[in-house]
């Protein structure tokens, strides 16, 4: 009998394929290994990321859902809450014990109630509304606060890049 983590991931996969949330596609990269997923996230409408399709990788720990998965964008991203290597920094992806930024209350942290779908929806809303206090990417946070036009330009370039279009 495979572990409970595997069964839960299979259940979530099934759920996501039956009722896909809008603008999100996610599933295992390879059906042999349910612990690594790929997700495609559409940039939320009405934001500077509108129209982009951003691929990301989700890696689940063996004790999922007791511990959170890790999420990393595999395209170039420029966002206050995304590290320059693509790792996503949102509170629900942090286990209650560790606090990399030292500002989150444990109420916003990971718990088994969360799911892939909720994570991806949180990421969509993070794209729409960056939290410039957390500062995974300090440059992006600074630009978001002080030079929104420049930030929007970079975002537009990234959107075009994910779509395979030449820069404007």
């Amino acid at each position, binding site marked *: 009998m495979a572990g*409970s983590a595997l*069964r839960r991931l299979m259940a979530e996969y099934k759920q996501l394929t039956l009722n896909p949330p809008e603008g999100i596609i996610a599933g295992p990269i390879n059906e042999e290994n349910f612990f690594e997923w790929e997700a495609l996230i559409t940039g939320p409408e009405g934001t500077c990321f509108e129209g982009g399709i951003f691929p990301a990788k989700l890696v689940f720990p*063996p004790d999922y859902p007791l511990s959170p998965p890790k999420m990393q964008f595999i395209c170039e991203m420029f966002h206050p809450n995304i590290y320059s290597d693509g790792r996503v920094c949102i509170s629900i992806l942090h286990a209650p014990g560790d606090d990399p930024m030292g500002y989150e209350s*444990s*109420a916003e942290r990971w718990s088994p109630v969360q799911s892939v779908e909720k994570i991806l929806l949180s990421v969509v809303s993070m794209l729409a509304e960056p939290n410039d206090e957390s500062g995974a990417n300090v440059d992006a946070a600074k630009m978001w606060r002080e030079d929104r036009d420049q930030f929007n330009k970079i975002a537009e370039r990234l959107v075009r890049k994910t779509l395979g279009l030449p820069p404007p």
Partner: protein
Amino acid sequence: MKALLATVISLGLTTVVIGNAYYQKKQFYPSIVYLTNSNPSMAVMYLQAFILVLLVGKLLRKIFFGQLRPAEFEHLIERSWYAITETCLAFTVFRDDFNPKFIALFTLLLFLKAFHWLAEDRVDYMERSPVIGLLFHVRILTLLMLLAHADSYFIHHAYQFTASKGPSVQLVFGFEYSILIIMIVNILIKYVLHAIDSRWEAPWESKAAVLLYTELAINFLKVLLYIGFVAVMVRIYTLPLFAFRPMYETMRSFKKAYNDVVLSRRAIRNMNTLYPDATPAELAAADNECIICREEMHTGAKKLPCNHIFHAACLRLWFQRQQTCPTCRLNVLRAPAPEAGAAGPAPAPGVGGHAPHAPHAAPTPPPPGPPPPPFPNMPPPPPMMAWGMPPPPPPRPASLASLTTAELQRMEGNERRNIEARLQLLREIQSMLDASVLLMQQYSTVVANLPQNNATVSTQTETRIEEVNTTSTLPTTSQVKTEPDVVPTTSSYKQPSPIPSTSKSNDTPSPVQPDTTTPIDTNRDKTDVDAADELRRRRLQKFAMDK
């Protein structure tokens, strides 16, 4: 490609160096002497040896692990850097013994360590992979056996060497290999657990607990080893800086494992004993799905104090990490358990009015009316402090007997406010009784030291309790009536005035917190509560008769 290039270059260099030596000296021994005396040639030879070690490592890795996963590779590199840094630190301590053999031994140690790490990662991966072939088992078991043999051989060697020639760098090796062999035991246990788990059809619930205890034991052993090693090193050489980082990490994980075990045990005990099993109706109302594993709940579901329902097995796993409700993050260890309701201030007869959420809610629903004294579960010190001073004069009529029935009823009041005020007062009585039990405990310990006073203890107890009741119940009009019958008893037990004794026990800080959850205290509370109930009943009877 890069590796191939490096191999070819180093092989070429070695050939050139050896060829050069042989060309110059023409004979075997002279050329060897020439090689060992020339620093550049030795550098080339070291490089060649290093490359060879890497190649052998690669070969063994292919044999035992096949292709490494990227995560494993990253992990390996990261740990290697730490290990190399620490080895360099170790070199500084043993710089006197510095020679090629010494370096070779350290390289071997690093080499073996790398395989221990890989084996550990691979066994951890077992839990995640849906299919585990026979090849996997054969590989892991052979590797573990080989590593265990190597470790025990080196431990034995280090022991023999130290026993015959006194302390040397072999101490470090003996210690390092002991740590490694503990690691092997740990990996083996994990392997067996995962293997059993993968054979069973049903999920094995207690596996996580077994893993937790194994970790605790293993970490304990490691901590002992590290402490012993540091002590020995400090006595013989100097502070072993290179052992500090792993020692700190081991201690931290030991502490974490210990905390996990203690807290999860408490949470799981709470779960097993206090929280009710969910009924089928509740299950149906809650969608019948356990939100932890996303599977249906049929049996073995538990309801937390916050009314959220989960599989007991899933909860047990989660409690080993966090002692909170997964949905609302209520801390189950701090949350008022139903037990507290039973032992706590429930017995007041008027509490029936609060019945709707009595079984699960906090034992003290926030009292809206009168000023709320801060006591959730345990009686705080304030009431005790108040005893030191004269009791506050409550507003009371000169004599209740002179009032008419209508007046009395008006005083008693029927509005919610009055009832709440009464309940509030009853609770205060409860907490004062608790406090008085505490005082009595202190008092009796004092008295136990003065054997001649034994006789007075019992009478004093009664005085105390009755006095508490009279002073605290005065404001409740329904009970004021009883005063006449209590006062005489108080005055008849006039022997030692209670005031001085109280102030005396106030001076000594209270050693025992009145914790209603410990069984002994609960019993004491019970008896006291019974006494109070008895008293109350008498008063009510009297009141009814007067009416």
